[in-house]
């Protein structure tokens, strides 16, 4: 299935920036979305959950999980292909895209980049296939934008490098938490912040689902509690030392969000364009009014320029020259733009726009979470501000 002829992204000829492989991957994810996700998404959103295991298996068969990583059963696609897959998933729902981001860019990436050979061989092929689900524990109740204030700690049970570890603490807002087979948990040690590969069936590990969410309802969000969790010495990720480890994972996931958030925006805009063409107001379609067209044109400009930025950042990443501040710029701009577009689309839908029948308000609700997670808007403004002025204004 090719892109819709009336898709607003055709105005920037996005297709011409993608190679055959990237287009084929984009089209395949879009097809999967139409066939297997869209028919159920309203039901999942209303129920406040998602069949994560079943989806992970289907995504694994396709090659979506850890798709831009190499080896260990991962597909090894381009960064832009990964971005376009996130874009298509988030065009369905941010929650579904979050499942894939956390699995691939946070949990699998952490193991792939920082893990021992044994970690990689044990976990990555099963995670790529969707047979094992991962989560990523960095944020805590009182440590969000400031992860260095984390309280979760790991201590050696005895002397020497062979001694077991004991981890105590808790993590909050953890996507996939209650369905995960493995958690990558970051904890304070005598040697700075270190990462640990924690099988979720380890005694002392519990996950509790967070309910009553008004956003990202088609996603599993949890609190992790680690109460004297005892792990062997080799559970520690050997190659990550300090906060640079988890922050590099977040940068990886953020790039997917730079593409993804605008998927939700595109879906909102396509919905609004279709609705405006059918809805008769006074004596002509809503789309025939100048105020509507001004909205549609402005949103299409925002969407198009945001996608050009996304693809550009993706290409920089492929070339190995992408700086963290550039990812911050992308996340700052594109998520904010997406949320604005989703809300504006809701105004075109009128009262119908407040029902679950139309996606824009669901997307807008979801994007409130996306605006906050993986670095809040404010944090990204400070990262960009620091890059511009050389002055750190975080504290």
């Amino acid at each position, binding site marked *: *299935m*090719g892109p*819709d*002829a009336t898709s607003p992204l055709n105005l920037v000829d996005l297709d011409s920036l993608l190679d*055959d*492989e990237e287009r*084929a*991957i984009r089209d*395949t994810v879009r*097809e*999967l979305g139409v066939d297997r996700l869209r028919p159920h998404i309203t039901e999942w959103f209303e129920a406040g959950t998602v069949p994560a295991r079943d989806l992970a298996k289907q995504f694994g*068969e*396709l*090659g*979506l999980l850890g*798709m831009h990583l190499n080896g260990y059963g991962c*597909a*090894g*696609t381009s960064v832009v*292909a990964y971005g376009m897959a996130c874009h298509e998933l988030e065009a369905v729902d941010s929650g579904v895209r979050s499942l894939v981001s956390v699995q691939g860019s946070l949990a699998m990436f952490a193991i792939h980049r920082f893990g021992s050979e044994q970690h990689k061989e044990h976990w990555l092929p099963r995670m790529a296939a969707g047979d094992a689900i991962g989560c990523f524990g960095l944020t805590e109740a009182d440590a969000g934008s400031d992860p260095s204030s984390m309280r979760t700690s790991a201590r050696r049970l005895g002397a020497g490098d062979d001694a077991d570890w004991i981890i105590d603490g808790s993590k909050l807002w953890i996507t996939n938490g209650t369905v995960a087979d493995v958690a990558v948990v970051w904890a304070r040690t005598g040697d700075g912040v270190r990462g640990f590969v924690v099988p979720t069936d380890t005694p002392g590990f519990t996950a509790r689902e967070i309910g009553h969410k008004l956003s990202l309802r088609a996603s599993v969000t949890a609190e992790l509690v680690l109460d004297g969790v005892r792990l062997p010495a080799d559970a520690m990720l050997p190659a990550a030392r300090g906060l640079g480890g988890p922050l590099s994972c977040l940068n990886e996931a953020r790039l997917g969000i730079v593409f993804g958030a605008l998927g939700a925006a595109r879906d909102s805009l396509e919905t609004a364009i279709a609705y405006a063409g059918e809805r008769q107001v006074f004596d002509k379609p809503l789309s025939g009014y100048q105020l509507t067209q001004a909205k549609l044109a402005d949103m299409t400009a925002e969407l198009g320029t945001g996608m050009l930025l996304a693809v550009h950042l993706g290409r920089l990443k492929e070339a190995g020259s992408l700086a963290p501040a550039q990812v911050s710029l992308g996340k700052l701009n594109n998520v904010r733009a997406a949320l604005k577009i989703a809300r504006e689309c809701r105004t075109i839908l009128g009262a119908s726009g407040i029902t679950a029948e139309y996606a824009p308000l669901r997307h807008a609700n979801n994007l409130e979470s996306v605006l906050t997670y993986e670095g809040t808007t404010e944090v990204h403004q400070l990262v960009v501000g620091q890059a511009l002025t050389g002055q750190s204004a975080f504290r």
Partner: protein
Amino acid sequence: MKIVVCVKHVPDATAKRSFDAADHTVDRAGVDGLLSELDEYAVEEALTIAAAGDGDGEVVVLTVGPEQALDAARKSLQMGAHAAVHVVDDAVHGSDAFGTSLVLAKAVEKIGSDTPVDIVLCGMASTDGAMGVVPAMLAERLGLPQVTFAAEVTIDGTKVTARRDGDVATETVEATMPLVLSVTDQINEPRYPSFKGIMAAKKKTVETWSLADLGVDPSEVGLAAAWTSVQEVAARPPRSHGEVVTDDGDGGRQLVEYLAGQKLI
């Protein structure tokens, strides 16, 4: 086991489709095309059959059509077919089912010239022409048994057993390889191309043949050789607004009268 799957590149039904003003053939250049959905079932069945048994079956996908028809073969390669043959020749333009089946038959013979072909698999019909006769014609030209519209297929050695679902009865048909087999959209659920499949497809062999390569005389195919010709095409008139019944207390009666008038009740 060597399986040839015949696939067709068709205009995307969700796009705006049109006919060429000069010769009334389908405009294939001006519209996005894709692998005919009904052929995806044939590709899936071929891949399933090839993977069964000792798993060393080979699936060659065959398509006839202009340059962009290669996309249909490419999608089949992404799904897992091993190699592709694309017959492209300006003289093929406008071919009917007779011409198409001739080109396909010659191509199947050429594909089988090194190792023989066991099964020629087709979808039940194309989603554009929708004739559904090419598999039968192909079998006739190749001198092979034909099992068409199979909704279920089981393979036992060289014996192929197929279930055909008719309107009033279900038939079970047996044939021996080599044969021509066409399958319906009830037979399986076609797989999505996996990302690894998409990436691997680039490295697979695609042979491009002309009519001369197949020894087909251009005068036997194409628009001029077609047994029928399209005299005129016109767009379907836009759907008119339905009849509005104003309920002045007798709305129910008016509805019943309307339905009765249409012989719907």
